[in-house]
């Protein structure tokens, strides 16, 4: 690794910073909007009004995004859906991360036979048509939000585990780890206190890659009818409903899809930006 960052790297760093700042602000704005909006509107997320179905977006009565086929307000539903999508994204990613980091760090640190077995297990899991297992799982168990988090998180941890293992192995060689071991710190302690913090860069990179996948996967589950259930709704569920009513009420697709696209765009750009900041040598720009 070169000691002095090149001009390019510095440029990337700064640009990364700007990108990160703007994306984070946009995401925060979305989050705030999704929390505040429903409070401001006079409608609730599940109030049905048969005589107000399929109203096109209008300023009167505060139907900013229009209504759906049961007369429910789309503005509130879209924002509530954004909340849930945020929630799913964060929690599922955390699940994926925790499993992946712990698994990979343990395998990488312990090395030897244990590492070999653990990585073979990962290979086996790679071979599973995971998506289909999730479908089966959703069918077997009751549909709870919790299960969705776990199911989605369980899909993505493999890549993280692999990368973390690789990184752990290289960190393991560093001197401060030997020092820690010599002074009698337990393996678990070493993993927890020395290795894990050094994985931060890699972890952040993988977070930014995972979240969009998680969000898209939840929308895929909603499309199959297996995602978030009433009375909650998610952007994926709203988009899925909107698609089948695309011609009758285009706003039912337009608004949730735009929010979803905006969210994913922000996350993707954020990922780029973070990668520029933390690892200027990594290929973005």
């Amino acid at each position: 690794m070169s000691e002095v960052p090149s001009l390019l790297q510095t440029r990337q760093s700064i640009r990364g910073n700007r990108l990160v700042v703007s994306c984070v602000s946009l995401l925060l704005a979305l989050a705030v909007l999704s929390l505040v909006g429903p409070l401001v509107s006079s409608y609730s997320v599940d109030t049905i009004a048969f005589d107000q179905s399929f109203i096109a977006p209008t300023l009167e009565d505060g139907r900013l995004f229009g209504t759906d086929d049961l007369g429910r307000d789309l503005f509130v539903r879209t924002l509530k859906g954004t909340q849930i999508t945020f929630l799913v994204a964060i929690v599922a990613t955390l699940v994926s991360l925790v499993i992946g980091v712990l698994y990979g760090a343990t395998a990488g640190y312990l090395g030897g036979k244990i590492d070999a077995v653990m990585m073979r297990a990962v290979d086996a899991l790679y071979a599973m048509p995971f998506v289909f297992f999730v479908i089966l799982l959703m069918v077997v168990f009751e549909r709870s939000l919790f299960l969705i988090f776990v199911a989605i998180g369980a899909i993505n941890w493999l890549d993280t585990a692999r990368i973390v293992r690789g990184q752990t192995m290289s960190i393991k060689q560093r001197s401060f780890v030997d020092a820690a071991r010599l002074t009698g710190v337990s393996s678990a302690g070493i993993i927890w206190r020395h290795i894990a913090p050094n994985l931060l860069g890699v972890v952040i990179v993988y977070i930014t890659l995972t979240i969009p996948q998680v969000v898209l996967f939840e929308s895929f589950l909603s499309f199959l009818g297996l995602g978030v259930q009433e009375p909650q709704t998610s952007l994926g569920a709203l988009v899925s409903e909107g698609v089948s009513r695309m011609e009758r009420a285009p706003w039912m697709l337009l608004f949730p899809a735009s929010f979803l696209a905006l969210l994913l765009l922000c996350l993707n750009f954020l990922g780029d930006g973070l990668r520029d900041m933390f690892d200027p040598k990594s290929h973005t720009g």
Partner: protein
Amino acid sequence: MQRALPAIKSIGLRKWALLLAGLSVCLVLAGCGNDRHADAYSNVLKRSLGPEPETLDVHAAISLQAAIVLRDLGEGLTGYSASGELVPAAAERWEVSEDGLTYSFWLRPEARWSNGEAVVAEHFVYSFHRLVNPSTAAPYAQHLIDIENAEAIIKGDESVESLGVTANSEFELSIRLARPVPYFLKLLAHNSAHPVFPPAVEAHGNGFARAGNLVSNGAYKLEDWTMGSMISLSRNEHYWNNANTAIDRVQHFVVPDETAEVNRYRAGELDITETVSSQMFRKLKEERPDELRISPFLQVYYYGLNLTKPPFKANRKLRIALSMAIDRETIVESVVGRGEKPAYSWVPPGVSDYQAMTFSYASQSADERHATARRLYAEAGYSDKNPLQVEIRFNTSESHKNVALAVQEMWRKVLGVEATLVNEEFRVLLANMLAREKTQVFRSSWSGDYNDANSFLSIMQSDNPSNLPGFKNEEYDSLMSRAANQMNPEFRQLLLEEAESRLLAEHPLIPIYFYVSKHLVSDRVVGWQDNVLDYHYSQHLRLKTND
């Protein structure tokens, strides 16, 4: 593009050419291998089925989709005309004995299988034997349970030969019944009573219904079945009525997605759709009013109540309250919206020789109903401080979800009930409904296999396996069994109506709406007639072509 040129060049024009060539080869190959979809005849009818049928074996089929295809392939002793009248089919005439227990059929001597062989009485004997044979495990074995000894045979107590069906001569068939059944001739029109060609079954076993093996006695024969895509039928030249079959080929397409179905129809790839989605309905009504065919259909959409457990066990007032609190008109207009009718009875209107009973509150205004509902709810022991907490289960579907949301809202507004929605995958729901452990309110539907009130009323008898709510009422059972043995049609009708009144008074379930059959039929198609069973045989249809 000018600036992209160096980019393309740098990858190497050769590599590019190779890539494009590879792509084109793929596409061409993909195109070449599929001549079986090419329309060799222009006289082809394209119908959509919905989900794929599970089989074309008449004795293993249970789905509505399989029935549609089987109606084109085969023919029973009786059949239906385009307008829904019962007509002779494989049999040209019949006689019923005075006591209603012996039916004699004379088959058409000119009737032929698709391989040219004659259709004879022995074939029907063989087929009915196969239907009730326990080792066939036919889901519709019960359909002909009224035939002498059928019940015992299905249970395994008697041998198949004892079935009350005999071939008196080559073309003469006699059927003896265990009890008089006024609608027996209608039962024989169902696809489970179609004959199979014995040598084909003997030769191929379970595979006899595959393309190339299947021998059929109907207007069409099986050309090909492309899994997941389409079933292709072609004219059976040996069919006795072939001269009146106008269409040469019928393609039944597998189209599980409603939106895709409508789009394919609009793009001209389908002549007839099997359904019309609620979302597209209004738009289609404006754009293509003449192509939209909506008509009453013998199927009821209901919320079953688990009577084996609280809160519905022995709590009739609660059940009635919940039923009265639902605004069926609103659901039918705003939620489903395709011309369905609100259901205030169990038997749908349009059933022949029958006058459906209705709930006493069918003609009341919404306010009156709500007031009575509230009163009954309170009498049942519930109030605002002690609201009913109940789960509404339904299987994954947009429209079931919307109906459930509407019902939830109505119960909340009128009674203060706290209902939670539980969306389950179809088979999970089925298992739960049968186990009767978790279910409280569950969505289900029932369609009639034949046009008689019995097809609806019989399933609520206490020993019927499809009695999902678990309704057990002695009076009802006794009325039904008296009706089953009643020869006089007027008395029988009275008994059945009395039974339905009893059923409705007890409220073991909440009927919500009666289905309509909904199709888009292109103006190319001539001869389509709506009927209450929604049977549309391709042989009755014609295509308007220019050649």
